[in-house]
């Protein structure tokens, strides 16, 4: 049992230690006691200090001395030191470490090391991105999606637009001002919002001197500090477009010529397949372009012409394989027609080369030479035919003799010649006239032709000799 005052003091200290609001009061007769006052002050200081530390208030001044207050000051000192170390780490100095705080030291130091390595990794990634960003050969920009504010650009962008660093103030320059048509910006944003990316979208934009450019933009959404941005790579295709237009124009012109030419113009790849045939082929052979495109070489050329053509092309291709120019092939070829007849054409075939000088195919022009062939045949016929009797003339007989001699020598065989002359033919001419004489000669040839074998040759040697 303790007395009432002691009980009252204990109640008071208990309340000081445990209650949020201290309602207990010390007995009046002890309130001036020095020891009581010292203990009361220490408990009040502990109470205030622990409340302050509990609330994270490290600037609270812990007044007083003694073991418990000393330990609290030590705790406060450690927390203040941790705060300072954390601030130095936050400012980028990762060399600070915590020691002599048990497991906390290890945990904190591991965190600092991890943070340092993560920051280094991030720095490396940032530096790598910066390097890639700057060395991309195409114009590349980062802009805010919301308003088009330019946040970053690379050298290629400056070269493409002719803007300088002074012109392109990051944070105020607006990429929207470069669009020639605002609607293209709207289409771009809409597509970006729908798909999350844009690929090769064509748009027109101004350069610094209001020069117009055409670009292909590819973009992705990236988030920077919580704000959506676009990372856009723009390929300037202005020059390409001009070349493309010229090429198209040139191609159309050539196609027009090819399509309307009398000659058949065709191209063939290295595998021997047609890659183009002009429509005039239908007039030449009766087959449509589509039909010819799928025809084999045997269907395109008569057998002898096919051999001739293949030999010629083989020679030409061998030249190419030996790093020599394609040997232009020229040849007369007989081609089958849809109606079963054939047509003679003169083909000129030359090589097609790519821009880098590679042999990639053949270009051919086939001209109808049927009439010329007929004329040549007629000339040939006339050159070996006796005008009066329509039998072979002396020229043909000489040729035939030559051939027979050769054949005879080769085959060790003999052949026979009949040379006949009409006796007293002058009397017929003198008696009945030359017209009758001519008729006699014609009749004689007819008689001879009727009485020789199909292999035998009948010709007029000259005058009245056969």
């Amino acid at each position, binding site marked *: 049992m303790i007395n009432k005052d002691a009980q009252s003091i204990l109640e008071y200290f208990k309340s000081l230690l445990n209650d949020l609001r201290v309602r207990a009061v010390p007995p009046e007769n002890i309130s001036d006691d020095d020891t009581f006052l010292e203990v009361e002050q220490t408990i009040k200081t502990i109470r205030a200090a622990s409340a302050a530390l509990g609330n994270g208030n490290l600037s609270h001044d812990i007044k007083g001395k003694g073991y418990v207050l000393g330990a609290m000051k030590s705790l406060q*000192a*450690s927390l203040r030191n941790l705060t*300072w170390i954390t601030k130095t780490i936050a400012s980028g100095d990762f*060399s600070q470490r915590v*020691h*002599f705080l048990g497991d906390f030291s290890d945990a904190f130091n591991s965190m600092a090391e991890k943070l340092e390595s993560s920051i280094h990794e991030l720095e490396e990634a940032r530096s790598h991105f910066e390097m890639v960003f700057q060395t991309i050969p195409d114009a590349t920009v980062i802009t805010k999606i919301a308003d088009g504010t330019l946040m970053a650009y690379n050298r290629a962008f400056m070269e493409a637009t002719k803007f300088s660093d002074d012109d392109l103030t990051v944070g105020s320059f607006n990429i929207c001002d470069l669009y020639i048509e605002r609607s293209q910006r709207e289409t771009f944003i809409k597509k970006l919002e729908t798909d999350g990316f844009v690929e090769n979208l064509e748009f027109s934009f101004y350069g610094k001197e209001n020069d117009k450019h055409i670009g292909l933009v590819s973009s992705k959404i990236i988030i920077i500090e919580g704000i959506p941005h676009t990372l856009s790579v723009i390929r300037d295709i202005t020059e390409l477009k001009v070349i493309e237009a010229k090429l198209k124009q040139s191609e159309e012109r050539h196609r027009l010529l090819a399509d309307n030419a009398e000659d058949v113009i065709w191209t063939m790849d290295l595998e021997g397949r047609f890659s183009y045939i002009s429509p005039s082929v239908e007039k030449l052979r009766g087959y449509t372009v589509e039909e010819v495109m799928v025809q084999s070489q045997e269907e395109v050329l008569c057998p002898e012409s096919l051999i001739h053509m293949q030999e010629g092309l083989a020679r030409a291709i061998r030249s190419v394989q030996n790093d020599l120019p394609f040997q232009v092939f020229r040849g007369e070829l007989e081609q089958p027609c849809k109606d079963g007849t054939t047509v003679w054409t003169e083909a000129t075939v030359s090589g097609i080369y790519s821009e880098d000088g590679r042999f990639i195919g053949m270009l051919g022009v086939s001209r109808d030479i049927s009439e010329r062939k007929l004329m040549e045949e007629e000339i040939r016929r006339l050159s070996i035919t006796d005008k009066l009797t329509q039998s072979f003339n002396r020229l043909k007989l000489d040729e035939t003799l030559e051939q027979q001699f050769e054949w005879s020598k080769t085959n060790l065989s003999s052949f026979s010649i009949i040379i006949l002359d009409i006796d007293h033919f002058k009397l017929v001419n003198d008696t009945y006239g030359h017209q009758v004489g001519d008729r006699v000669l014609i009749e004689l040839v007819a008689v001879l032709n009727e009485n020789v074998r199909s292999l035998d040759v009948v010709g007029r040697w000259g005058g009245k000799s056969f």
Partner: protein
Amino acid sequence: MERKYEFSWDLLGDIGAGRPNLGNVTRVEVYRLMQFTFRDIIEKHVGVQETDEIFYEAGKLAGSAFYQHMITKNDDLNNFVNQLKAVMRELGMGILRVEQADMEKGELTLTVSEDLDCSGLPEQGYEICTYDEGFISALLENFSGKPFIVKEIDCWCTGDRTCRFSAKAVNP
């Protein structure tokens, strides 16, 4: 005044050569025995205040020599603190911690735990680390180029568990 005992770092001698068997380590009691006997005799000769001033000044001389020989000159506070922490720990001088540092204002609060001078001493009711005060002020002056006044505000001898020093630049 003709000097007999002018300090130089060389006076610390070649300890490796001189103590091949006992080495470079002694016990803290030996250090304290010498310091407190010095303090006793000096106090008897010149009084309390002057004794404190002598210890503060001796600390400054030690701190300055220590900085010149043990710290690599660097303008960065964090680097300086790191070096100092490491060397104090290595030499068993104490565990240095920075609570607060504002070099622009020239204000720092440092603590030294397990201090060589006073940790574990019986409670005296007064701060005793005057030597440390001078030592720290010289370190800060050598680092920053500005003179500092350092005052111990908490000490083992006053019942605390760590020595806390408040440093203020004379001309921030």
